[in-house]
């Protein structure tokens, strides 16, 4: 038993040395946990940013001019004033996402207390901007009209207010979400790539053959890769969370970091096993690369880290319950964003442990079976 541990420890240390002398992988780790996290947090493509808007002003009144001047960067680009005939070509070519059409006599109607209507054309193929943007434009137009009107005559306010408060991220700052999601994603991604590549490298260099003639078992070889690569990813994620997320980006972390990294360790057990499994299927680095693309993209996009799970088809939601990342995203968001404790996230931790065990056993069996053909 002591020999087993000694072997696992020795081989793991060897993995660390190998990684240390592999500049490509080191670069990848550092890049992923610094630059990639930072840029993903600061660039928030989903927000309403410089939306292109055009205005057809057939009223040419102080009110219509007042409305037109209410749109400015950063949410909108400076509105382009166009003629009615330009609406369709401009929207067809995708130049304008929004076109606001103010009819003639609008100001007159408003002041006379008659019903008045402004038409807003929204290019609904621009999903990211269409929804929030059109709501925003409506609000702007209505409040401009309201202000304009109150200047002429007093108006009673609405009696029932709605007090909306965003919890866990009061200002809806997107960099919070971006940064923490990236960390969660990269933990899964890098652990798969590192372990898989470590095994492929042994295979390509022929060193696996050497290991197998020594008194070490496949179990020891596999476990040594699991612990060493898991440790590296854990450490890199920890440093990134402290320096990049909390330091450079100034994002507050709500919950217990200890709990988060303990859960991450459980997840790593599953993802590193997955990496080993994939490396036994692929014959060389290029094949492993292709396989990674096909496995990592679904894991990232469908586990709920990029878009909410509940908007996916139910079938996809159920299938993705098998993926360790789905549970990891849930518990990671709960701990980091909402400050949840172990009393809240234990079901996910249990699920991750179970998945990890199953993955490890499957990967070990497959590893034992194929290891002979690797040598």
């Amino acid at each position, binding site marked *: 038993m002591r020999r087993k541990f000694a072997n696992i420890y020795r081989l793991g240390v060897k993995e660390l040395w190998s990684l240390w002398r592999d500049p490509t992988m080191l670069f990848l780790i550092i890049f992923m946990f610094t630059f990639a996290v930072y840029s993903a947090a600061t660039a928030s493509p*989903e927000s309403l*940013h410089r939306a292109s808007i055009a205005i057809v002003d057939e009223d040419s009144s102080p009110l219509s001019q007042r409305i037109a001047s209410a749109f400015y960067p950063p949410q909108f680009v400076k509105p382009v004033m166009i003629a009615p005939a330009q609406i369709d070509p401009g929207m067809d*070519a995708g130049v304008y996402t929004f076109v606001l059409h103010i009819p003639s006599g609008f100001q007159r109607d408003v002041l006379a207390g008659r019903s008045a209507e*402004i038409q807003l054309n929204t290019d*609904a193929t621009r999903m990211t901007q269409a929804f929030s943007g059109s709501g925003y434009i409506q609000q702007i137009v209505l409040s401009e009209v309201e202000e304009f009107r109150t200047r002429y005559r007093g108006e009673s306010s609405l*009696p029932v207010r709605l007090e909306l408060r965003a919890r866990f991220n009061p200002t809806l700052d*997107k960099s919070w979400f971006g940064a923490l999601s990236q960390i969660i994603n990269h933990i899964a991604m890098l652990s798969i790539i590192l372990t898989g590549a470590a095994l492929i490298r042994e295979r390509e260099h022929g060193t696996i053959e050497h290991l197998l003639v020594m008194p070490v078992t496949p179990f020891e070889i596999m476990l040594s890769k699991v612990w060493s690569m898991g440790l590296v990813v854990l450490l890199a994620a920890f440093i990134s969370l402290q320096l990049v997320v909390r330091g450079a980006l100034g994002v507050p972390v709500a919950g217990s970091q200890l709990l988060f990294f303990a859960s991450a360790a459980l997840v790593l057990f599953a993802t590193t096993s997955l990496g080993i499994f994939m490396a036994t299927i692929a014959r060389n680095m290029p094949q492993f690369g292709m396989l990674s693309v096909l496995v990592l993209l679904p894991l990232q996009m469908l586990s709920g880290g990029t878009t909410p799970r509940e908007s*996916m088809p139910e079938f996809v939601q159920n299938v993705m319950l098998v993926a360790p990342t789905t549970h990891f995203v849930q518990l990671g968001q709960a701990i980091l964003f909402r400050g949840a404790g172990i009393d809240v996230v234990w079901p996910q931790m249990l699920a991750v442990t179970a998945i990890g065990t199953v993955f490890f056993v499957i990967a070990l069996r497959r590893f034992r079976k194929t290891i*002979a053909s690797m040598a």
Partner: protein
Amino acid sequence: MALSAERPMVVRLAQVRLRYGKAEALRGIDLDIEAGRMIGVIGPDGVGKSSLFALIAGARAVQEGTVEVLGGNIADSDHRDAVCPRIAYMPQGLGKNLYPTLSVEENLQFFARLFGHSAEERRRRIDDLTRSTGLYSFLSRPAGKLSGGMKQKLGLCCALIHDPDLLILDEPTTGVDPLARAQFWDLIARIRKQRPGMSVIVATAYMDEAQRFDWLVAMDDGAVLATGTPAEILERTGSDNLEAAFAELLPEEKKRGHKPVIIPPLDVDENDIAIEAQNLSMRFGDFVAVDHVSFRIRRGEIFGFLGSNGCGKSTTMKMLTGLLPASDGQAWLFGNVVDPRDMATRGRVGYMSQAFSLYSELSVRQNLELHARLFHVAADEIPGRVEEMAARFGLEPVMDDLPERLPLGIRQRLSLAVAMVHKPELLILDEPTSGVDPVARDAFWRLLAELSRRDKVTIFISTHFMNEAERCDRMSMMHAGKVLDSDVPAKLVEKRGAKTLEEAFIGYLIEATGESEVEAEEVTPDQARVVHEPLPVKQSFSLQRMLSYVWREVLELQRDPVRGTLALGGTVILMLVMGFGITLDVNDLRYAVLDRDQSSVSERYQLDISGSPYFTQRRPITDYDDLDRRMKNGELALAIEIPPNFGRDVQRGQDVAIGAWFDGAMPQRAETVQGYIQGMHQHWLADQMRMAGISGTAGSVSVENRFRYNPNVTSLPAMVPVVIPLLLLMLPAMLTALAVVREKETGSIINLYVTPVTRSEFLLGKQLPYIALAMINFAVMFLMAIFLFNVPPTGNVMALVTAALLFCVISTGMGLLASAVTQSQIAAMFLAMMGTLIPTITYGGMLDPVSSLEGGARIIGEIYPSGHMFTISRGIFNKALGFADLLGAFWPLLITGPLIIGVATMLLAKQER
């Protein structure tokens, strides 16, 4: 130095130098080679033979000095183009420039087409060549499944298909069995008889082969040691064989310590058996790698396995170490049945594999220590043991170096030291000396002799060198998975009545294979004198050459299931993932209400939300703790609190506030929730006022929102037209990039360097099949969009297909571009992926329109083709447009494609640098 002064020179080298980074491969070579001769370049691996040949063949660019070939400077590209059809070059490595998945016939057809022969001419030449080499009956067999000797014959046929005047053969017989080797040289001799004007330059590591050449060049360490006829060289060194002569020619510091190998007589107990194998067999599918092999090795003896590459030596050794489970038969180590789980026996065996396989990332010392620890040498003994090994195997000066920086001979000693670190009783050494120079080889053998005779270690060694096999106490000759005979080497020679071990081996081989593997037909003088049609004049762009690349790429693609699966399966998977994954819809939001009022008004308020398709209601919230907990674990995305006396206050028109908490963790979703709930509240208010009769004093102002092109504002119709171009860009680019770089990795790119094919023919020939493949991908995605995602195109389908075709030209072109600047498949793939994904997602208008970008990003967005493709795709899927409306987006696509291919062509090297 010339044999006869009148002969013209075919190759003249003056002060030729070549460096790879810091390493100097050639250090000033001056050499004149006469035409019409057979010239042998001898020397071990890594002395610069291959570099020299690559320079002469024009495959590698000349760095320093002048290389004149066939009467002109090879550095001059016009001259190179002119003489390239007269040169044939067969690079080192078994079948390195062949295509393993293509059959013999297809390989030959490919090369013949590159040289522009007509169909009948090709047929005649292929039949001629294969008949005379004995390959005729194997025309339909894939090149990858030929034996080593046959691969080399095929390589030779491919080289001879265009009647070269200069034939350059780089180690054509390395790793080939002696019979095939002898046949190969006979074949060369016959061809020379038919074409006496042809000059042949051959490199070889087998010194004994060099005896038959007209003139020899001995090389070491990037310099010429000596030149002359074999007889001259023997005489000058006073040796009786070339191997000894070569050792004699080496500079003084290398020779130092060189003594002949003397192995003391063997003294073993006949009944003390270290290894025994009985009917050991190994099958991989249909292929029998090892066929009922039996032998016994006594303790303390040196036992040799002699055979060519792929004869089953390594597989047998792997079965003995427990690396491979035997399909049949049994083996015993020290009387115990070989069992992979038996850790104790493993500790008694040391193994050295064929290729250097230690950790190149660990230093020499770390390698030794790691292996000592894994073999559980007691911790306090390890430092002493490591020192002992270092001293014994002469590793002390390099203990802290990384192995990859060491010369081959030292790495070999390191491998042996590692195998010996736990003091095993048995050493299994798989071709430990291949590629090492004769002096280092002798040094290695002296170590083995000492281990065997002094330490009584049993040594089981495989080799393809005859003189090494002769040193063994006993040996087995292996061929095609079978042991032909085992005995003391001298007895084997005696048994066959041969003069040398090589002759004896050939005798055994002929017996085993029934005369010879395939009888080569003697070419009659008539056939030989067939006047071949002259080569067509070199054209700047030849459709035939391009089509021959297309044809070959299609064949290869068909036979590579992995790439095919990625191409089609990858598209389907990623389309599904992105279609379902990139959804910005918000529905089924879980919410719950903390109703402290419980009045009819508060119920009506809730009714409004529960009726919405976007929300699903959960059980009511009981108190703040409950609210807090359920929001924390993510159960609730929205919690609404209705204050006490809400209904009464509303009726009285008093100021009241409803509290709504929503989960801000996902800001994107949160914004949408915010929008919904505000809208709902407004709606309720309006209703409420109407019901209460508090009609508004002012006329209502409304903004009528027309969601165009996608009236329900759902994700799928918005995403599908975007995902299709994205995948159409990424996957074909990756596949195309792999296609070119794969050739660089396997070495068949050499055919671009040394055949008349031009860069544009090569690239276009590679690209066309991938454009076709990409269009199939497009068709698959198009059908998925209609039938699976229910997003049918509303505009002109023909316009979409045209745009897709133009776009595929661009995406495959980008793959070519990525492949032109990378050297490894993984780098090419990474570059192709990043180079397409990042600009497309960030600048291509995938999420935000290009018109909302600013500065440099705006410029990239306008130039990068994916933005225009998005416009077309959206226009046709969502906006019911046709050619005329989208003309502005078509033009850029039309221009970009040829532009990218042009750049890729310029960046691709026609010579290795």
